[in-house]
């Protein structure tokens, strides 16, 4: 299925404080969650429960790096960093 081409991920700042965008509602499903942005009407699927926890808890950490260190096994950090970059692009998360 054609998807918008993923932006280059090198721009994501792991050391910045991030949070779930206030206009985004999360609805948990068995395999993750649906995230709907009431402003831009976009619907994003978060495909792991761990990613849902990261998105919800992000605002409680001084940086994305700290959140990943606390919540995600180290060998998955690369995948999660790329996921967070995509979530910035779709405005599911924003600067805190």
């Amino acid at each position, binding site marked *: 299925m054609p*998807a*918008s081409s*993923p932006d280059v*991920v090198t721009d994501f700042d792991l050391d910045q404080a991030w949070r779930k965008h206030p206009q985004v509602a999360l609805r948990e499903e068995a395999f993750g969650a*649906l995230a709907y942005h009431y402003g831009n*009407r*976009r*619907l*994003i*699927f*978060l*495909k*792991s429960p761990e*990613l849902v926890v990261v998105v919800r808890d992000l605002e409680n950490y001084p940086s994305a790096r700290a959140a990943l260190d606390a919540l995600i096994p180290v060998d998955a950090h*690369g*995948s*999660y960093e*790329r*996921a967070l970059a*995509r*979530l910035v692009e*779709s405005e599911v998360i924003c600067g805190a």
Partner: protein
Amino acid sequence: MDQVTASTEETVEENSDVVEDLLVEEVSIDGMCGVY
């Protein structure tokens, strides 16, 4: 030689697409076979 390089680069790109799609995917929500 050039061909081998090109296909390796393509594979790397495809892999990162696959990895990203494992965690985040955008859903087209225009009606989804609804009327509106």
